């Protein structure tokens, strides 16, 4: 069974995000004063082949924990959808 996992990695609340701050400034300059905060993270897309429905979520979570996110500074979430053959 094939799957497409979409992983979102974001800086933890309280961790400095200077990129987000700079982008927020730029948006203000462009005339969007309503932007109260910008947090910049990562979007990672995985295509997974030959994994069962039962194990795919566990394995993706493990990948996030071990490599894709650094839990000291980042949180992660993900979605998993069956991939069209």
């Amino acid at each position, binding site marked *: 069974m094939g799957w497409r996992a979409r992983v979102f990695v974001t*800086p933890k609340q309280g*961790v*400095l995000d*200077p*990129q987000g701050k*700079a982008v927020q400034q730029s948006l203000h300059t462009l005339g969007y004063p309503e932007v109260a905060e910008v947090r910049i993270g990562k979007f990672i897309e995985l295509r997974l082949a030959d994994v069962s429905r039962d194990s795919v979520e566990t394995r993706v979570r493990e990948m996030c924990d071990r*490599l*894709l996110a*650094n839990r*000291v*500074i980042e949180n992660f979430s993900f979605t998993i959808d069956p991939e069209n053959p």
Partner: protein
Amino acid sequence: MKWGVITFPGSLDDVQAAHVLEDLLGESVVRLWHKDTALDGLDCVVLPGGFSYGDYLRCGAMARFSPIMRAVGEFAAAGRVVIGICNGFQILCEAGLLPGALIRNRGLAFLCQSVHVRVEDADTLFTNRCRRGDVLEIPVKHGEGCYVADEETLHTLDAGRQIVLRYTDGEGRVTPEANPNGSLAAIAGIRSASGNVFGMMPHPEHACERLVGGEDGRKIFLSVIAAAGATAEPVAAKVVSGP
């Protein structure tokens, strides 16, 4: 003593570290490749600066899974000395051998400049040739040098005398201006709770010759050498007791 200097794909300062140890300090150096798996017979291992694996994903995130890192973990657990400089510091944090993480500099810019760091503790394997409060002038060159950790970790670092170096001005004062990258509590270098693993963002290996602007960096390497001479193996045995 016998040193190992690791080269990861993308390491830059491995040659300089080996040059300092071998040519300036007369030490015995073994050059190691990231695919090596043994550190037999070594007293200290250096993880040098650079951009291992192109800093992909996060600085040090890929390097920590290099084959040699398993050996480095065992080496550290056995009480032997591990030093991570800049990217090496980032790798040690990613590997969990040191607490916290290093993120993008507060000002976003890549920094390449001389900084001052104050010796917070001279009773360590890495600073015993300094006095507490000494100010060393050592260059930094990094884009991700902002040290962060949660409050509990910071408290543990403080209580365990694990903060070894702080960014200061030339007079040894901690000020916002003297903190080049926004590091938490102006932290420039920390050691493990066990005392034998050390990471610092500034580059002592680039401050060992008058020709390049100063020799303060020598004190770091000379401290490790002095500690090794003063104690039986493994050298970490002397300072693991804490305050």
